[in-house]
């Protein structure tokens, strides 16, 4: 365990100035709200993980011997719903973003603190509805809710789940709105746009997507729910409705949604990589603009999920081209991060382990996305495990790794404590190894033709499936470990000072944990975000 400073424990901070349950549940402090989200998202993560365990256990054998087909359908559906809506979408923005954003821009709080608290409650209520639907029988439509199965034929709890997802969407919308106004209107004196940390650019871009895309899935799920509950005809082919219309509207949100999931972790990577290379991020403005570009371009590619659904080949060609184009800003970021490392003074602590993991895994995930953007190849691998592997590389290898990098980076700031760096690194290693073992075989399986969403498969696929399930066990250990060392650190961890990493950024210029009002005096900014060359301070 690293001992950092000889400072006395922080006297008054946002954690200890009020102790009652009410002071937490009615808190308008963005830092406390971030912690509340941390608790609920972690819960959602482990629930989603349990469903994943069910899937991987079933898939160890080619036969359907662990669960019935119907149950298996529920397992993968509910795994997807929990992970997408209750983990990946909120993770970095609602937890780390809520905590760090006002600190990074030198503000006392977000623009609308009461709305921020409401966002959390909306999230919790949506989660209760969704879990309620899961406990009372579950949903079996796939997280994609394709009609008419979802709206007409399925006998599972589609309506209740739809309502849960609908409600939760508003949490995302309100958070995005809050962040946009905060960034526009509450920056400290001297904090010009181009002095902002790159995480702020990433959160702003994410907020754009949250605000513009989420309402569309809200109305789409509502239409599906109306069709199911009241017999309204909108997607019902028996009335002349078009199921592909549902897919268009669904993916208009759900594709940009993946950018909601990846942009904030990319912002985290920029922060951590600068600190642990002791260097300014190479091409700051390119990285900043690429966040905006990803947000906007992300709206132009959704029909690549419909390539084999019967859309016109001309439309498909346009969307294919645009899907290649959207990779460019992501590539720009990857090049710039690599260039940041070059000739940097690299030192490796846990956050940096997760950054390296991100770089490798996001690269694989991103490149395989190009395979899928290619029309001819997509016809072959659509609805196979190739797709499953691709998006897990991005979402788990990318987004979750990025989230963990951020959690390990800002934990000392959030709690005033250091966790065990050795255990952190071990966790990172286990996650990296476990992840690759779980998902790399799935690329091969998919290419060989194993379809997704089936609980049985031909015998010749068993070896790869067993490797994948074994990997999942390693992954599970890797994810459980932080629960223990983080909780341990709360009571027994060494006290962190203001700036245990010697990092730039306004959040590190104030105490750990921060004051309720963040800064004793409004900071004035007169330098760029990553002036590491001016830093003399080295950390033990």
């Amino acid at each position: 365990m690293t001992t950092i400073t000889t400072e006395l424990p922080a006297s008054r901070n946002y954690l200890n100035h009020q102790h009652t349950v009410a002071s937490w549940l009615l808190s308008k402090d963005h830092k406390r709200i971030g912690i509340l989200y941390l608790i609920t998202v972690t819960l959602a993560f482990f629930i989603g993980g349990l469903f994943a365990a069910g899937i991987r256990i079933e898939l160890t054998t080619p036969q359907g011997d662990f669960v019935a087909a119907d149950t298996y359908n529920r397992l993968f559906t509910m795994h997807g719903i929990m992970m997408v809506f209750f983990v990946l979408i909120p993770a970095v923005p609602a937890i780390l973003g809520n905590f760090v954003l006002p600190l990074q821009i030198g503000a006392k709080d977000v623009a609308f603190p009461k709305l921020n608290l409401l966002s959390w409650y909306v999230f919790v209520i949506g989660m209760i509805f969704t879990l309620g639907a899961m406990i009372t029988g579950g949903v079996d439509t796939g997280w994609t809710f394709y009609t008419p199965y979802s709206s007409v034929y399925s006998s599972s709890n589609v309506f209740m789940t739809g309502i849960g997802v609908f409600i939760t969407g508003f949490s995302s919308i309100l958070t995005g709105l809050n962040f946009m106004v905060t960034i526009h209107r509450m920056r400290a004196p001297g904090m010009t746009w181009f002095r902002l940390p790159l995480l702020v650019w990433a959160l702003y871009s994410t907020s754009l997507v949250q605000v513009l895309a989420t309402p569309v899935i809200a109305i789409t799920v509502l239409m599906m729910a109306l069709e199911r509950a009241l017999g309204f005809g909108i997607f019902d082919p028996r009335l002349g409705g078009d199921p592909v219309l549902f897919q268009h509207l669904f993916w208009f949100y759900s594709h940009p949604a993946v950018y909601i999931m990846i942009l904030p972790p990319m912002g985290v990577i920029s922060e951590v990589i600068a600190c642990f290379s002791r260097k300014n991020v190479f091409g700051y403005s390119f990285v900043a603009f690429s966040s905006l570009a990803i947000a906007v371009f992300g709206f132009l590619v959704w029909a690549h999920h419909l390539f084999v659904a019967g859309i016109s080949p001309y439309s498909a060609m346009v969307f294919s081209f645009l899907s290649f184009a959207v990779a460019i800003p992501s590539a720009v970021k990857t090049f710039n991060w690599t260039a940041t490392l070059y000739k940097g003074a690299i030192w490796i602590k846990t956050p940096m382990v997760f950054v390296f993991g991100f770089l490798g895994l996001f690269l694989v995930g991103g490149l395989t996305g190009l395979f899928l953007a290619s029309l001819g190849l997509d016809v072959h691998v659509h609805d196979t495990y190739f797709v499953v592997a691709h998006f897990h590389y991005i979402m788990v290898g990318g987004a979750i790794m990025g989230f963990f990098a951020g959690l390990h980076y800002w934990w000392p700031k959030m709690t005033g404590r250091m966790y065990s760096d050795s255990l952190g690194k071990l966790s990172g290693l286990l996650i990296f190894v476990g992840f690759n073992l779980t998902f790399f075989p799935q690329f091969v399986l998919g290419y060989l033709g194993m379809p997704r969403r089936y609980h049985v498969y031909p015998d010749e696929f068993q070896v790869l499936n067993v490797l994948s399930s074994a990997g999942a066990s390693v992954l599970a250990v890797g994810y459980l470990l932080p629960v223990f060392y983080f909780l341990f650190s709360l009571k027994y961890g060494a006290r962190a000072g203001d700036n245990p990493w010697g990092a730039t950024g306004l959040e590190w210029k104030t105490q750990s944990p921060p004051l309720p009002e963040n800064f004793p005096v409004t900071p004035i900014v007169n330098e760029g975000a990553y002036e590491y060359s001016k830093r003399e301070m080295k950390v033990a």
Partner: protein
Amino acid sequence: MSGHVAPKSLYYSIFGALMVLTAVTVGVAFINLGALNFPVAISIAVLKATLVILFFMHAKYSSRLTKLVIGGAFFFLFLLLTLTLTDYMSRGWHTSPRGTTTAGQLQRTDAPNGGVAPVGGHVEPPSPVQEGQVEGH
């Protein structure tokens, strides 16, 4: 805090303009302009909405950022509508008689003149009795 205070006469004139435009839109609806009825009605609606946004919502006197936000809303709505509809409109273009996609095949069973797609992209959809879209393999 001082916002721009508009004279009452401005609000009354805009109201008058909106009433006139409402009458026009109703009147024109009864005139047979064929395919033009729809664009005309939408254009009048857009004009009415613009007046409300500029004057009742004070967008004319607001910051550039506000104007950008308003423009952004309509831009993304436009994206949603156009990119979705262009898919449907371009189905069946230049499809060979046997059809190379499922979209082409569906159109073929339905079209009155034996499967040749009309140029211009108007696609007759399947009647309810026909099958729905075939999900890709």
